[in-house]
């Protein structure tokens, strides 16, 4: 217990520090944001980047890693796949180009066989330093099929490549649908024509992996600390990895999971084999720093080179200061943020309640909670506009003035619900009281909560909101029966809407680790398997629509996804989409050329440039 005297001193100090803090000025006018032109290209310099955590989903092991930031580092700096993307922004960044392969593959007339020829002279980095062969790619697929490796997007290959089944040992002959007639040829045989197969073999998990190293790591994520490079950079200290036996291998020094990742140039890399990576910088350092304010200030001061999605206060500085504005880069994120509603849980088992919730939601308020229009446009449907070639840019099934919510229309919709017995447009059933909502305990979720709660209260729905560190685990566990969550967002895996709707609304979902939070297409059997009750109302399924779209290609495919998006928004209504996110980067003055990797939604590390001044 402090003494009276001490308390006075403490109180005085606190007041003084607060008064001092209050003297900082603020401005209110915000300017327009646009992406500045890129500058001259110079070689050299070590790029630095700080973030609060490594949010790796699988320890940076390419077989299972599912984090966009990690994909950006892997595909730009560490891994080459048969085909890849040009590591630039916008539509050109979504184009498939040959990388390890000499050219795009030969495809058989029935669309079932893909033959790739590999370029000569591409080697693994140290300490392996040998020519990459088609067997190394085949090995990567065998790892995808190994259950213990937990390849998080194995569903892109399972059931598509003949004989590839997760958990099934392919035997000495290898996977039936992958042949390697010689060191430079690899042939894939598919079970059905797959319009986006090239996108699937551009994923980091399919990059060649040297078996002599990776065979020592049988558990998910382990190989992440021993990753052998096939591109322009490698972990610092890779050359010191002793690969003479499994026992002699110690984690590469350039990756400390509690501190940093440090990348240096790969001496075995041949620039002549690579058209799409300029590899201007000498290296990159990604450091952890739990103090967001600190690393944001460092970027402004020029001590750190990149800040990813700055906080609103820092963003305002970047936008309002003419010098800083030159260092702000905004690109489409191909990511939708949404509120998910559980079709099996009251009151959201009633479609009229879900529609009313869409109509009443103050989306502009949610956008503000995120930091305003710079963070993204207001979403009015599921698939990001850029991924549908703006086909649904004007589509808004639940319109309201300034996107602030339409109380009259929402109440009109609510009147049709079984939960509004007196027909006044306000839910009067007890199921609308204290509806469990699980969100994150960090911004922007914490800032969204007042907006969401006050919006839904207008139609009689009150929330019992829980703010937790990890909101995804409960909402991904079907048996937890979470009726609504403000946490989710989804970004594309590759530039095809299948990676949105195919993943998120497939009725054959797992009971834990489920991404179909709304339980679209829930059947009696599935409900029983997951231990929940089936609601009275039938739950719509879009499985057939997904299957139809998957078979199509080109414009037809795009239109098919757009129609499915509309069906979901009007006939299923699983979400309240609210933000079609943009990716915002602030940079230091050292960055003379910024490039955005449209595939990974992050910095295109292979195509940025710094001034030659070495940073400390």
């Amino acid at each position: 217990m402090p003494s009276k005297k001490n308390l006075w001193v403490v109180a005085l100090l606190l007041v003084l520090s607060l008064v001092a803090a209050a003297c900082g000025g603020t401005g209110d006018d915000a300017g327009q944001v646009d992406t500045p032109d890129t500058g001259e290209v110079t070689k050299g310099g070590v790029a630095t980047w700080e973030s609060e955590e490594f949010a790796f989903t699988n320890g940076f092991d390419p077989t299972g890693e599912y984090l966009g930031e990690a994909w950006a580092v892997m595909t730009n700096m560490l891994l080459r796949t048969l085909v890849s993307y040009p590591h630039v922004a916008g539509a050109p960044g979504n184009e498939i180009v040959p990388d390890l392969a000499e050219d795009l593959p030969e495809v058989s007339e029935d669309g079932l066989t893909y033959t790739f020829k590999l370029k000569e002279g591409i080697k693994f980095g140290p300490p392996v330093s040998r020519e990459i062969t088609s067997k190394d790619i085949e090995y990567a697929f065998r790892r995808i099929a190994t259950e213990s490796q937990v390849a998080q997007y194995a569903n892109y290959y399972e059931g598509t490549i003949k004989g590839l089944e997760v958990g099934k040992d392919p035997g000495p002959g290898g996977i039936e649908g992958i042949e390697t007639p010689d060191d430079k040829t690899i042939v894939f045989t598919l079970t059905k024509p797959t319009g986006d197969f090239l996108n699937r073999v551009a994923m980091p998990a399919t990059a060649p992996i040297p078996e002599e190293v990776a065979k020592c790591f049988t558990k998910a994520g382990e190989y992440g600390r021993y990753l052998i490079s096939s591109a322009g950079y490698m972990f610092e200290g890779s050359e010191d990895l002793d690969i003479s036996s499994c026992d002699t291998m110690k984690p590469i020094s350039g990756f400390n999971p509690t501190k940093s990742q440090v990348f240096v140039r790969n001496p075995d890399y041949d620039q002549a084999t690579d058209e799409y990576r300029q590899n201007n910088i000498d290296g990159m350092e990604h450091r952890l720093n739990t103090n967001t304010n600190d690393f944001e200030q460092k970027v402004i001061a020029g001590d750190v080179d990149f800040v990813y999605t700055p906080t609103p206060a820092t963003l305002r500085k970047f936008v309002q200061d003419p010098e800083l504005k030159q260092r702000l880069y905004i690109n489409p994120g191909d990511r939708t943020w949404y509120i998910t509603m559980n079709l099996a849980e009251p009151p959201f088992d009633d479609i009229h309640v879900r529609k009313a919730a869409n109509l009443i939601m103050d989306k502009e308020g949610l956008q503000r909670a995120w930091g305003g229009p710079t963070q993204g446009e207001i979403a009015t449907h599921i698939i990001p506009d850029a991924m549908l070639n703006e086909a649904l840019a004007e589509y808004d099934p639940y319109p309201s003035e300034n996107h602030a919510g339409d109380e009259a229309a929402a109440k009109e919709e609510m009147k049709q619900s079984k939960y509004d017995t007196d027909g006044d447009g306000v839910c009067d059933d007890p199921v609308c009281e204290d509806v469990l909502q699980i969100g994150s305990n960090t911004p922007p979720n914490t800032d969204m909560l007042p907006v969401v709660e006050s919006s839904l209260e207008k139609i009689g729905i009150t929330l019992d909101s829980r703010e937790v560190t990890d909101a995804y685990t409960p909402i991904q566990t079907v048996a937890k029966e979470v009726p609504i969550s403000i946490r989710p967002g989804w970004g594309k895996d590759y530039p095809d809407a299948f990676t949105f709707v195919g993943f998120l609304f497939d009725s054959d979902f797992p009971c834990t680790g489920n991404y179909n939070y709304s339980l679209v297409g829930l059947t009696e059997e599935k409900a029983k398997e997951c231990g929940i009750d089936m609601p009275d109302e039938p739950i719509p399924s879009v499985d057939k629509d997904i299957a139809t779209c998957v078979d199509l290609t080109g414009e037809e495919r795009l239109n098919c996804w757009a129609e499915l998006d509309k069906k979901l928004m009007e006939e299923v209504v699983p979400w309240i989409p609210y933000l079609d996110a943009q990716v915002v980067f602030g940079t230091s003055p050292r960055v003379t050329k910024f490039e955005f990797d449209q595939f990974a939604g992050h910095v295109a590390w292979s195509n940025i440039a710094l001034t030659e001044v070495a940073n400390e």
Partner: protein
Amino acid sequence: MSQAIEDFGLPVQGPISGQDTEQVEGRTPRQLFWLRFRQDKVAFVGLAVILLLTLTAIFAPVIADKVAHRGPNDQTLAREMTDEFGLPKGPNETYIFGADKAGRDLFVRVIYGARTSLLVAIVATGISVVIGVTLGMIAGFIGGKIDTIISRLIDVILSLPLLLFAIGIAAACSTSKEGCLGGRIKPGLGLVVFIIAAFSWPYIARIVRGNTLSIREKEFIEASRSLGARNSRIMFREVLPNLVAPIIIYATLIIPNNIIFEAALSFLGLGVPQKTPSWGRMLSDASRLLEVAPWMMIFPALFLVLTTLAFNLLGDGLRDALDPRAGR
């Protein structure tokens, strides 16, 4: 918290007598207390502040309605009170304390915050006093095995890492509708009160036990025992009245701790839900916007400091007045 305040037993059995005065005037302990307390200006200020805060808390809805014309969760002026980056605007004629991140009136939320702080502090302290006094008295009076069990229980609870434990309970009970223990523990105000009470009663119990130990050896207890009084009668009619002073002092001193504890829990996001204004939660929200919106921190912090300070001053004053032998 570790500094124990021991030995507050005040004799109730006889008046203080002047030796050399002709007329001996008897004074009751209450009179003596009042004589000493009213000379302590600082404690009086503390008391005044507490009364003012209590009135503010009780009449918060009336003040909000008459002065600010809006409730604590009203967002009708959110568009005007935040800029296009969603950053709040500072004090002006409409919002005298400025706005929070959601564009709500900070003045209204701060005065409503007094409700939460005082409610949590007083209810939790009340519960811990009841538990602490009961167990402390039983342990001290009966002694033997019961004393050992209760004393070890106190030791165990005092050795638990309080905040970690609270974080654990709050986190574990937050991810399902039912909460924990079949719905007995649910996040929110109730859980906060429960956690605070569960961890603060041992302090009271210790003091009470110590005092009971010394009181039970006094002559007047022996006298009543020789007259055939039962244990329960001795405990409630003889021992308890002698414990009133330390209980009052310690309860007053534990209240500010509990206010701070509620603020800490809310700061960590484990306290009351966001729609219930709480100073701790406000400070937490303000911490990441200190540079652009310092008012979000200044006002809740000022009220928090003022409240805890007032309770501490009053507690110190009460101690001085009730137990003049205890030096500062």
